[in-house]
């Protein structure tokens, strides 16, 4: 079997890591939380870093009127199906397709990834900005606008007494690596075709 095919198939299969490992993690540090509160985001669920963390994040957040982190969101139904299809598609292309298809798969996956990140951003924005008008504590930005509590999409940010960290987890790293492999597979395939 051609090297490019093997790389393409392995690359696609690495996406299966998303069914095992979390995609993203948000961690909140504060002086009274020497063990920080954390939430893992999987493609199909939210989970506690330490038992009851989400419950305790909700409890903290209710003081500023933030909504509870929902038990589930519609995306958790869609994501696993999309990823499943993409893995299947990638493997089929790997076995049967032309190397040009590899690039096609990569572009499609990148587009889906960006859409996913955008969706995540929208949810975060809503989560951080749609606040209970009867919130116990209301804060304003220095410019007089209402303060939001949106966690960063990527990176670290101070929000009142908390420092919020938002970083990819092994599921995402496996996905990125897999996507890079499919991209490499394209060039390897191109070389092999000459």
């Amino acid at each position, binding site marked *: 079997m051609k090297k490019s095919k093997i790389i393409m198939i392995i690359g696609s299969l690495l996406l299966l890591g998303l069914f095992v490992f979390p995609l993203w993690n948000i961690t909140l540090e504060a002086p009274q939380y020497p*063990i920080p509160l954390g939430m893992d985001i999987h493609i199909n669920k939210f989970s506690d870093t330490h*038992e*009851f963390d989400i*419950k*305790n994040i909700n*409890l903290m957040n209710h*003081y500023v009127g933030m909504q509870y982190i929902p038990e589930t969101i519609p995306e958790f139904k869609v994501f696993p199906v999309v990823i499943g299809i993409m893995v299947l598609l990638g493997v089929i292309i790997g076995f049967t397709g032309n190397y040009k298809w590899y690039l096609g798969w990569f572009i499609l996956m990148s587009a889906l990834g960006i859409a996913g990140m955008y969706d995540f951003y929208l949810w975060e924005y809503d989560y951080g900005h749609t606040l209970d008008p009867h919130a*116990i504590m209301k804060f304003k930005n220095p410019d007089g606008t209402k303060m939001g509590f949106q966690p960063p999409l990527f990176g670290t940010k101070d929000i009142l007494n908390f420092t919020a960290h938002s970083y990819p987890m092994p599921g995402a790293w496996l996905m990125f690596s897999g996507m890079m492999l499919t991209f490499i597979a394209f060039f390897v395939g191109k070389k092999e075709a000459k």
Partner: protein
Amino acid sequence: MKTFIKSIFLFALSAVFMVSCAPSEKKGSKSNKGALAGNAAEKVYVAPGELDSHYAFISGGFSGQLAVYGLPSGRLFRVIPVFSQDPEKGYGYSEETKPMLMTSHGFVPWGDSHHPDISQTEGSVDGRWIFINENNTPRIARISLKTFETEEIIEIPNSAGNHSSSFVTENSEYVVAGTRFSVPFPQRDMSIKDMKGNFSGALSFLKIDPESGEMNIAFQIKMPGFNYDLSHPGRGKSHGWFFFSTYNTEEANSLLENNASRNDKDFIAAINWKKIEEYVANGGGKKVPANYAHNTWDDNSHTATSVMKKEVLVVEPKDVPGAIFFLPTAKSPHGCDVDPTGEYIIGNGKLAAAMTVHSFTKLQKAIADKAFDGDAYGIPIIKFEAVNYGSVEPGAGLGPLHTEFDTRGNAYTTFFISSEVVKWNVKDLKVLDRHKVYYSVGHLMIPGGNSRTPDDKYLVAMNKITKDRYLPTGPEVCQSAQLFDISGEKMELLLDFPTIGEPHYAAGISADKIMGKDGKKTTKIYKLDENTHPYAVKSEAETKVVRKGNEVHISMSMIRSHFSPDNIEGVKVGDKVFFHVTNLEQDYDVPHGISMIGANTSELLIMPGRTTTFTWEPKQIGVWPFYCTDFCSALHQEMQGYIRVSPKGSDIPISFTLDGDIPGAEEE
């Protein structure tokens, strides 16, 4: 590489040299200034945010409780309520904890706690449970070292003054309970002056369940009517034996200070419990009627249950020949201590100048040779010379009370009368060092002291009198503990720290054995999912108020920072209102409290996931508030509610709301 090792060696050597030359070192042992004399301050300084290396569990004596300190800092972390009510924690006040203090004499709100001892596995303290005895109304308690709460209290029948207790064998097979005051066995109406020969002293062996830790009296040995003062288990080669010191072998019933001090020698009772265990397993002993309370705590229902037991198995010494012997020991011995090897049994003759050291090897030979010197009530008395290894040289001190050991073959003995701790070598019986203590020291503690593996860096001496050692606080001043560093040749006094009640006796253990290396071994919260309390609520939607005749049962929840429900109406004068309160938090270190104006009881302090109950019998009409008593959060001050109390016979129905709605109504 070689030069590197050499230079490290030289560096180490020079460090040793410098330390031994430091002038402070010698002063340290003589001066009473402790910290000022050397680098003692550094040795006890635990910087902010750092943790102590050891736990010290120091009995509260007449406070009835057990206090938890850190070593080397001497900081007090927690007072575990055991035998006395504690309104701060609601212990003995809440409906759930009241059964813990039930006895055959009814509810007893106070106790006199004495000798804590930690469970052991293969001769080392394992940090699972700590046992402690109550002297006044004879009881033994078991405290979990996961939750630091009292999980079990068992009453000891046929006993009075439960003093020579609660010491644990080296695999936690048994915890023992001895009798200080001999009494009629079973109790009966008789003339006190007929005591001699008619009283008995029960020595009880309580089997410990290896999984749950639950205690049950396996057998009671009906011993002659002496006073049994202290005890310790054999270990290593002497595992299977238990040794109890006795006083008042004169069997005096009045003015004991004179009449119980006539004999130059009293006894250490040596008991081969393995032999008695075998005898009992083969159907030996006699079940006799008794009446004693067995109280157990359940961490799922968060409730104690008290059961009265009606029978106990009694063993007569004469029925198990070869199992019990008396070893003559200098005058009214207090502590009865066994060294880490199990070979030496030390009788601390508190009214003698000398300490008696017996040999376990000699004891076995004496038994084989029948080297007896008569008997006492049928129990053979071993010839003194046949069992005695030697005595600690006269003039060692006055009034020896208690001895513990290090792993280097040394013993450390407290001397009450001369107020000092004396270090001596167990093998050659020579005194090596002595240090004043301030004042009138009772027991001492080396972490793991009652085991094969003492953790021998620190020694804590516990003093009955402090006089001028602290700022005066009126006629009653604190009692205290004094911490010594015993890692060097000379004992070095590091720290004085005050204690609660009377620091009667203590047990210590290295912190990692209790915390685990990652700090995860101790309980952080109780899981709501596992709460089986009949009035537990798992969410606010389940909270409610129900009337049953003149009883009103409130199933209430608490979470940062409100109660649910927090407005209740329909309660009437003459009702008995039960507050069954569940803390819905599942976060570490977020307890909430609750108290109700005019309630004739204590507050409740409720840990996350736990349900606890108090009662309130309103006597006046009006609108009465309740509130959270533990500063729980930024909105703690707002955590409050009202109950409307209407006149007797009023027809206002029960209603309950949170923010104007029936809790949970919105979600439906």
